[in-house]
């Protein structure tokens, strides 16, 4: 799904969390949302997916206003992973993943097939029947991601994923695995907006980077055009340096001591 955001603003208690954001996102792209704490990344995701009303401007998803979609319509098209999930009941892992099928009217058999596929994709087979509460932080995160993927798995050609810091609790190998999964899903047409703190992940996997600062869109574009020393200094007030790797299109970013 393509996403067109025009003149978007979001004000809460008279403090503007988002101001005048205009950007276009192509169908099937991975869009990294980057910016310092409190720059409006989470708010942007919430307003774009229609969970929160705008204070001005609008968001069109495939020519439909995201805020005119019903709860049910949103649930079958958008998979949303919040920053943190609190689940305090002893569900089994497979039961949590199955909840992703709640919005769908598909048969039990079809649902189970989707759940099995996603569990394999997220490499959760060996903890499939464990109780969620006994899992580590990273394992819980992967289960929640699997639940969100399950929601849109059979609609990958026309779906959106909104992931708020999905890699926060993941180890290196699972970070990579997740982005390989995201790449393949995006290849099928799913548009993915993902909040990231790790700029190297953004550099390596994103097709487009939105750099936010104080509720404004500082710049947007290809990773190497956005994650430059100048713009990073403006947004984060840190100095960065780009080191070349084997792949000239994918340098490595390090922060520099002052």
């Amino acid at each position: 799904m393509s996403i067109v955001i025009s003149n978007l603003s979001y004000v809460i208690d008279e403090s503007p969390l988002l101001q005048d954001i205009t950007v276009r996102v192509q169908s099937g792209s991975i869009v990294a949302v980057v910016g310092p704490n409190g720059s409006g990344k989470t708010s942007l995701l919430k307003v774009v997916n229609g969970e929160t009303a705008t204070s001005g401007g609008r968001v069109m998803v495939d020519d439909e206003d995201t805020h005119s979609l019903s709860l049910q319509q949103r649930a079958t098209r958008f998979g949303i992973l919040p920053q943190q999930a609190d689940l305090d009941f002893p569900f089994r892992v497979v039961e949590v993943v199955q909840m992703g099928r709640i919005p769908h009217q598909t048969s039990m058999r079809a649902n189970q097939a989707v759940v099995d596929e996603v569990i394999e994709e997220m490499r959760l087979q060996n903890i499939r029947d464990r109780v969620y509460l006994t899992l580590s932080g990273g394992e819980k995160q992967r289960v929640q991601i699997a639940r969100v993927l399950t929601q849109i798995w059979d609609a990958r050609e026309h779906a959106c994923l909104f992931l708020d810091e999905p890699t926060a609790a993941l180890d290196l190998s699972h970070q990579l695995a997740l982005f390989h999964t995201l790449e393949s899903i995006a290849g099928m047409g799913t548009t993915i907006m993902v909040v990231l703190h790790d700029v190297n992940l953004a550099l390596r996997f994103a097709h487009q980077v939105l750099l936010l600062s104080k509720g404004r869109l500082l710049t947007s574009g290809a990773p190497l055009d956005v994650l430059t020393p100048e713009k990073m200094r403006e947004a984060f007030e840190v100095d960065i340096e780009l080191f070349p790797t084997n792949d000239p299109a994918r340098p490595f970013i390090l922060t520099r001591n002052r």
Partner: protein
Amino acid sequence: MPRIRLLILLLILAVVAIASLGVGSASIPMEEIFFTLIGEEYSSVHKMIVVDIRLPRMFLAILVGAGVATSGAAIQGLFRNPLADPALIGVSGGAALFAATYLVIGAELGIASAGIAASAFVGGLLATWLVLEVGRRGGTISSMLLAGIAINAVTLSGVGILTYLSTDVELRSVAFWALGSLNGADWHSVVIATSVLPVIAIFLIRGEQLNAITLGDREAGHLGISVARLRIEIVVLTALATGISVALCGVIAFVGLVVPHLVRMSLGSNHHVVIPGSAVLGGLLLLLADSLSRTLLSPAELPVGIITALLGGPFFIYLIVRQKGRLGL
């Protein structure tokens, strides 16, 4: 697997139910109960005890236990709060106060007694609304629980005051409202109590939505569920089941807290299993407690709420200790 365990539980309930007909101030042998039930007569006194007293009492215990336990399960899921129990958060207290008030006014005006359940429902609903409102302003789980304690205290002293103002014999018994008893069971009350069955059925139909809401209100919304509507529905149904139970048997504490926990521990958290499991185990637990209550000090009777509180109190403490740090207290 959970399905088989549910069936076993149901079987145990059936056995205990039949056994419960034999116990009480007059002990009746099993074979006599069997022949009485299939219509053959041993002694007319025993037949009267079984058919007019113990049989309705057995059904009432099962229905009320099921209603209270499933209400606890539903409201715990709804608030993602393992300590929510209609009796602990003041819903039962509100129901008791309104039922007692109705009795006093009704006695003066001569209104039909069928309205007791209705006023208990209204009282339960008001108490729930109050608890929710305080909880919303306080913003934490603990403020909701504390509000429940306060409402419990106020409503039960309200009932206390009413019992002193009233001359009505039924109302004279503070113990009935505060501690709960199945003593007044008759077929009429069983008929009223069957109205918990549709409530349980709706809880069951909403099982998937209750599952989703344990993930969080936002997450449930992302799964296409209208959380506000679900909340109103569950709160009203809970008040209804609690109101009916209180009107018929007074406040029966802790069943709504203990039973869903035991069910989750043994059958998992899926509400499609938790709801029927709580219904069966709730009925079983109250039936056992009631059988104990009428044999322990036979021929005298303990209020059944004393037994459930004796079992439930320590369990409540165990939950608090086990869940430390995760309740926001």
